[in-house]
């Protein structure tokens, strides 16, 4: 269907207008991060750019600790979830039984348990076994939190692999493990990668468990940024610099995984 010039003009106007409006807070954050603290409190465009805020944030002895925690916990949670999910998704996609459908839907329904509903027992359990404020504690929580989504996404990808290829492999004598390793993993590597990416994004931005279960030791960047909420921590330029560094990597990941995101977050209900 050809658009009339007026339609095209309106689409351009509204499309770009809303895009810029929605992106403005992020752009402003990046801009402010290059200001000095003195310039940061006057909302204007005239300023001399400086890297002072970045230097200051890095100079904080604990910044790298927070960043490292974010990286380790997100990667750990994602890898752990994949380790559990790959065999499960494989089995359900290629050896479905009469229970598969129910199992998949049940897994999805576990995702509906609101975290705040189980905050108390998890907190007490963690306290009892000494896992409060540990990286491994959050790794376990994040893996479990994302496991249903990860299984679902992988299942969707595995379903699209033609069965004939596996048949051929079986004829050639490939056992189940070999089948997964030599045939499925290469075939579905893009799927596994984008599933992992989505899990990374969700772990990186998670801010309920990280705020409630960690303090100084294992706190990731979400908690580090939250520490700027105290009145004495109100340094706009430093807040912006720290935020920019916390957001930038995952924003880029996000741009690359838009499509998979739709699949993963809607459990394949919207295609």
């Amino acid at each position, binding site marked *: 269907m050809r658009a009339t010039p007026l339609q095209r003009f309106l689409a351009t106007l509204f499309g770009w207008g809303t895009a810029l409006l929605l992106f403005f807070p992020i752009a402003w954050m990046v801009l402010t991060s290059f200001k000095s603290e003195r310039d940061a409190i006057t909302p204007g465009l005239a300023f001399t750019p400086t890297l002072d805020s970045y230097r200051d944030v890095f100079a904080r002895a604990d910044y790298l600790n927070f960043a490292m925690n974010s990286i380790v916990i997100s990667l750990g949670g994602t890898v752990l979830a994949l380790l559990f999910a790959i065999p499960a998704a494989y089995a359900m996609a290629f*050896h479905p*039984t009469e229970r598969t459908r129910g199992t998949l839907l049940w897994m999805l329904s576990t995702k509906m348990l609101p975290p705040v509903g189980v905050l108390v027992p998890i907190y007490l359990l963690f306290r009892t076994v000494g896992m409060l404020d540990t990286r491994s504690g959050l790794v376990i929580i994040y893996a479990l939190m994302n496991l249903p989504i990860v299984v679902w996404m992988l299942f969707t990808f595995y379903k699209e692999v033609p069965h004939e290829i596996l048949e051929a492999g079986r004829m050639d004598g490939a056992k189940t493990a070999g089948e997964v390793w030599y045939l499925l993993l290469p075939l579905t590597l893009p799927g596994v990668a984008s599933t992992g990416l989505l899990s990374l994004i969700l772990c990186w931005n998670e801010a309920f468990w990280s705020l409630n279960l960690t303090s100084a030791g294992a706190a990731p960047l979400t908690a580090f940024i939250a520490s700027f909420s105290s009145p004495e921590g109100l340094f706009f330029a430093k807040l912006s610099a720290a935020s920019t560094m916390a957001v930038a990597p995952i*924003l880029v*990941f996000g741009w690359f995984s838009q499509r998979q995101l739709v699949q993963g977050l809607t459990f394949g209900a919207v295609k």
Partner: protein
Amino acid sequence: MSATLSPGASAPPHDTEAAPGRKVGSLLVMPSVIVLLAWMIVPLVMTLWFSFQYYNLVSPETRGFAGIDNYQYLVTDPDFWVSLENTLILLVSVLVITVGLGILLAVVFNQPFPGRNIARVLAISPFFVMPTVSALIWKNLLMHPIYGVFGALANTMGFNAVDWFAQFPLSSVIAIVSWEWLPFALLILLTAVQSLDHEQREAARMDGAGVIAQFFFITLPHLSRAIGVVIMIETIFLLTVFAEIFVTTSGGPGNATTNLAFLIYARALLQYDIGGASAGGVVAIVLANIVAFFLVRSIARRLEV
């Protein structure tokens, strides 16, 4: 949780596996099922159990069966009803804003215009910003009455700057959360709009349907399913908004922005009232389950195994 579904509704007719294959299959699924089962059942039972107990971490000597005291205390506490009200206001407002604007934007972004892909990437970016960053950037850089952009804009236009978080605390939180979730709605709805059959619209146009008529009689019905999914998924997350409130208002001023999630957090980790917090937790679980029931049902209809 699991009571919401009836497993094994349809057996797959095509792929009949030999016995050994099935055994290996369930062996591979088992680990995931077991850890998820533990992750769900253990805390759930504990929450239920604590909700019937006197249990305060500050006074460990008073413990024992509380009957429905925790629940009674909860429902007679005005804060609880305010938090429930705030939870629902937040939920409904954000849903209306994000779904309404999301549909509009999805239609706009479905039109060809120069630089559309870049514009789309910019528009969905807020979704990838971590909640603590979103909240603090909005609160300090944009909404701050003295140093913020909005205040400066108001001043140049001759208005007085508004102290958003003092005067309109809940609306401020709603604005931030809507900004985070509008991209999600846009992304899902755009995907749905793009799958719309072009020939159908072309036919409607030939028959003289204008842009508006096309939207209401073709696009909107086509989107109904996606809209339902967006509403349900957002609801699950919006019922327990936490970080945004935690870093901006801490539930205040007073209890103006205390939602159920924040109330439970405050009960448990600030007042150490484990029993009371657990009773609140049970309420949150029940609320979420009402939504989950419909979500799982609508996804089940689409699922092919």
